[in-house]
């Protein structure tokens, strides 16, 4: 959603490299950010050329253009490689950022309380940082213990097993995904049935013959088919929690309405709106779903969270066209409407009096090229 209120957005805290006054940390922060969205890498994907992007960002880009956004080398989804090492580095940095923020806040509070002694904690902080950064190990630099939360942050490297629980506790509240989760409570109504479905018959078991993970309710059909049918073919439901395979691309143009509906049904997605909406919804779902699989297992979201993400995406697309108060909207934009009407009248008059095929403009991406025009360079 595009918001007109820049001030409101500027005042909200969106983590950014400029949070750091010193250039070294700012550069470190910037180097862990996706160059498309500017956020810290979320499910980083490395392309054959070596450039790295968030999975969702590069998937969105590749739907338009099959080249690396940085170096323009041609690329395809087949070249995507997940980068768990970078993902771990980003996780560690996120934690470090938070503990720094907490430290800064405590420092400020202390400075306010005891204005005369305000220098003391600052010096302490600096000393600690310096001594920490002199140790070459990354995790030591990262784990500068703050005065108030030192118990939560062991200064020694943490084994990766405990990373998950720590991440969940310490995830910044300004994290977009979490904000979405909180706001997505209203989704329950919209996706209620879908969620219920995936939870009731949803217990996963392994097939005793082929060892494939199957929804319990579908095991008989699976066995009867000679281990041919996977659970989603029989029950029509796929669970992101246990899925390991990415959803293949669909060529929607070849599908009938019924088949598009089936695609949505296979993922328990709502069938609201027209065909265009279904296709867009399914496309987005495939992106969200596949991008989620590019995270390391412990960081993956569950189906419920992904559905909320999809719902939020749809809402943000819808909201752009909404006008709260039509009367004031008409009044506020009267000038623009008058101009548009005049323009439309003019161009209609021009069209009637001029030869066709002079200029072709793409509308919604549909470009009608005139063969005679194509050869003429415009500039």
């Amino acid at each position: 959603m595009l918001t007109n209120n820049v001030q409101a957005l500027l005042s909200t805290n969106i983590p950014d490299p400029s949070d750091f006054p010193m250039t070294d940390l700012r550069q470190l922060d910037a180097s862990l950010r996706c160059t498309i969205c500017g956020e810290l890498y979320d499910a980083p994907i490395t392309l054959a050329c070596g450039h790295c992007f968030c999975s969702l960002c590069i998937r969105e880009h590749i739907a338009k253009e099959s080249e690396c956004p940085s170096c323009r080398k041609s690329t395809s989804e087949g070249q995507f490689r997940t980068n768990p090492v970078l993902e771990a580095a980003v996780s560690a940095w996120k934690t470090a950022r938070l503990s720094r923020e907490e430290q800064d806040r405590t420092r400020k509070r202390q400075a306010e309380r005891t204005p005369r002694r305000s220098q003391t904690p600052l010096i302490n902080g600096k000393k600690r940082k310096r001594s920490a950064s002199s140790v070459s190990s990354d995790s030591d630099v990262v784990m500068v213990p703050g005065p108030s939360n030192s118990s939560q942050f062991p200064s020694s490297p943490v084994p990766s097993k405990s990373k998950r629980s720590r991440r969940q506790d310490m995830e910044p509240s300004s994290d977009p995904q979490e904000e979405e989760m909180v706001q997505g409570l209203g989704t329950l109504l919209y996706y209620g049935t879908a969620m219920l479905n995936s939870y009731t018959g949803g217990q996963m078991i392994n097939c005793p013959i082929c060892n494939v993970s199957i929804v319990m309710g579908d095991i008989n059909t699976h066995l009867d088919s000679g281990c041919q049918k996977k659970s989603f073919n029989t029950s029509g439901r796929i669970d992101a929690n246990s899925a390991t395979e990415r959803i293949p691309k669909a060529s929607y143009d070849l599908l009938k309405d019924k088949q598009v509906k089936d695609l949505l049904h296979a993922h328990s997605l709502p069938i609201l709106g027209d065909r265009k909406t279904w296709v867009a919804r399914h496309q987005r779902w495939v992106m969200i779903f596949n991008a989620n699989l590019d995270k390391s297992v412990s960081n993956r979201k569950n189906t419920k969270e992904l559905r909320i993400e999809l719902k939020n995406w749809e809402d943000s697309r819808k909201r752009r066209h909404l006008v709260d108060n039509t009367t004031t909207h008409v009044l506020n934009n009267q000038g623009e409407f008058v101009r548009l009407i005049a323009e439309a009248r003019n161009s209609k008059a021009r069209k009637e009096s001029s030869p066709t095929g002079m200029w072709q403009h793409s509308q919604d991406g549909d470009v009608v090229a005139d063969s005679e025009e194509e050869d003429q360079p415009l500039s």
Partner: protein
Amino acid sequence: MTSISSRRLRKELTEIQTEGCPTGITLLSADNFETWYFSIEILGESLYQGEVFKLMFRFDSSYPISAPAVQFVVNQESTAPVHPHVYSNGHICASILGTEWSPVLSVSAVCVTLQSMLASCKSKERPVDNDRYVRYAPDNPKKTRFHYDGK
């Protein structure tokens, strides 16, 4: 909830405010995340010495995946530079704003590219088909499919 496009624009704005624009470029206004205005001038030896132009950026919700609509502002106060790739209505024929757009580019990167496009100009003239184009041009330059001949 904030969308990717406004979050990304907010980051760009923060960067412009903290680090400043590239030389010769000044942020005139960025009151929302739909339209931003910049002033642009070419420093050093060029055909446009002493001239200042006004650039308008329009963003949609698919930014930065899709390019912003960028054009020179043409009104009583400012005009479009006379350049073989700039139409008199302010529309710019630059591949970077069309097929060659990449989401890793940014507002300041576009400004710098346009600056160097003007700086490297050899002769001040309008595109050959200027009149014809301007007569039928859509309001938004992104709706035109330019033919980039690499000049």
